[in-house]
């Protein structure tokens, strides 16, 4: 025999399926959105970590190559903000040029500038323009490639991607809330008789609201958990952006969507967040509807 825990609301398949399917889709999209946002964040961080602290000084040495290089190294090393300055060995230059010149080691035969790899103090930074002036004043023909300038141009792009992903997440959350509100209104309309009877036997608005809220909480949590699980599997097994680029220096410049470590917690947090959105949306929608019913 059915006990007191029997549901006070009959099954309403239209609003049930609507809420469930939308929740699955929202959970899936939101998980991908969060993965994209955290991917953009980690990319921006890696750019900052790897590139910001580096600069390259190219010295056009000509015939007085060795002395010019030594003079340039001396000036660079004593410049404020420089942690370390190191002349690149010919072998390292060959390796850099290998994609264009092959492995014949022909770099030495070319009149190429000598390169100084500079490690910059993160806190103080490097005034590249001032360094270049000092080097030119010393009679040296140099070009400075401060990677921090690249980072300064790349970082806003990463931040825009992240903002876009979070914006999409916000829209998804809003859409989920509106869907639940819509499903609640539909449920209230189709279950008008049940609500009337509940009220006639003394149910307070809070009691009726709780019944609806509980139903949509469960539906939305279950649906979004399913969607999040599908997204997790997709991210786990789908090819990454760096696919085929492993080992190339370009690879770290591309985002990774596969969450790492604690980032997997989002797949638990998102369904909980959706359940919270459903609770708020259902509560507001049912409360307003009940008040309108009796005027």
């Amino acid at each position, binding site marked *: *025999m*059915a*006990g*007191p825990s*029997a*549901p*006070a*609301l*009959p*099954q309403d398949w239209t609003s049930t399926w609507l809420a469930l399917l939308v929740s699955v889709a929202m959970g899936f999209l939101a998980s991908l959105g969060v993965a994209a946002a955290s991917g953009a964040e980690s990319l921006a961080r890696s750019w900052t970590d790897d590139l910001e602290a580096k600069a390259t000084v190219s010295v056009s040495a000509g015939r007085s190559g060795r002395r010019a290089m030594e003079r340039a190294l001396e000036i660079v090393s004593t410049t404020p903000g420089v942690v370390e300055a190191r002349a690149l060995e010919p072998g390292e230059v060959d390796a850099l040029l290998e994609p264009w010149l092959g492995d014949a080691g022909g770099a030495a035969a070319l009149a190429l500038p000598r390169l100084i790899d500079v490690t910059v103090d993160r806190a103080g930074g490097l005034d590249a323009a001032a360094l270049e002036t000092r080097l030119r004043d010393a009679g040296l023909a140099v070009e400075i490639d401060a990677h921090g300038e690249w980072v300064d141009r790349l970082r806003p792009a990463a931040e825009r991607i992240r903002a876009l992903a979070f914006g999409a997440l916000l829209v998804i959350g809003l859409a989920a809330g509106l869907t639940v509100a819509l499903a609640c209104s539909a449920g209230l309309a189709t279950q008008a*008789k*049940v609500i*009337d*009877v*509940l*009220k*006639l*036997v*003394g*149910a*307070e*608005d*809070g*009691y009726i609201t709780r019944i609806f809220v509980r139903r949509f909480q469960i539906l939305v949590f279950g649906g979004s958990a399913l969607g999040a699980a599908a997204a997790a599997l997709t991210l786990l097994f789908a090819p990454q952006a760096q696919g085929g680029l492993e080992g190339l220096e370009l690879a770290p410049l591309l985002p990774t969507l596969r969450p790492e470590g604690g980032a997997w917690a989002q797949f638990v947090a998102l369904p909980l967040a959706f359940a919270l959105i459903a609770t708020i949306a259902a509560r507001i929608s049912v409360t307003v509807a009940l*008040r309108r019913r*009796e005027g």
Partner: protein
Amino acid sequence: MIEFEGVGVRYGRSAPALADVTLALEPGSLHFLTGRSGAGKSTLLRLLYFALRPSVGRLSIFGEDAERISRDRKAQLRRRIGVVFQDFQLLDHMTVFDNVALPLLVAGRSEDEYRANVLEMLEWVKLSDKLDAKPPILSGGEKQRLGIARAMVSVPDLILADEPTGSVDPEMGRRIMALFAEMHRLGRTVLIATHDHDLVAETGAPRLHLEDGRLQRLPGGTQAGTQAGTQAGGASSGAVSARD
């Protein structure tokens, strides 16, 4: 307990469904509410369970002004009122047992607390063998008995019944009336709307007669009609009055 002071109800621009009703029902009284179809019986009952608000006048239930109470307070007061509806108002997706238990469930009681009450009530209306059945498979008479069981299971202070014996055989009708009488004996206020003059005559309880929305008080066992006007002032119990 219940006081109407010049209460009138009008739906839109039609003639008033109730006009200038002044009435007091003492706690523990039993009355019949009679009148032709459309005379205003259901309207008067709806006022009493807060499904309707008076267009004019003042209505006080359990000492509280119906116009001034909050929504939640209304719900709390409804728990003190058991209503038997002419159209039953059952929940088709719930079992017989759960339908009867609904007022107690809504009031926050646990099954341990109300199980015996529900079973006893279902025994009384002879539905014990249909605990797990759902209303759509019940006959009209069974639905009516189920509605009566739900209205009385919490032994409410005020019992309102709209044609409670309309769909049952005479034997069950007498059994149901015995149930109302038992509630009355327990000090509950009972108001039964009916067309069944035999039932009124058998019971002998005082009668409130509605005609064209106007209320008259008649002693028990009399027929409505020409006698009504002459006996309207002859109140014997229950402080009932009507101004026409």
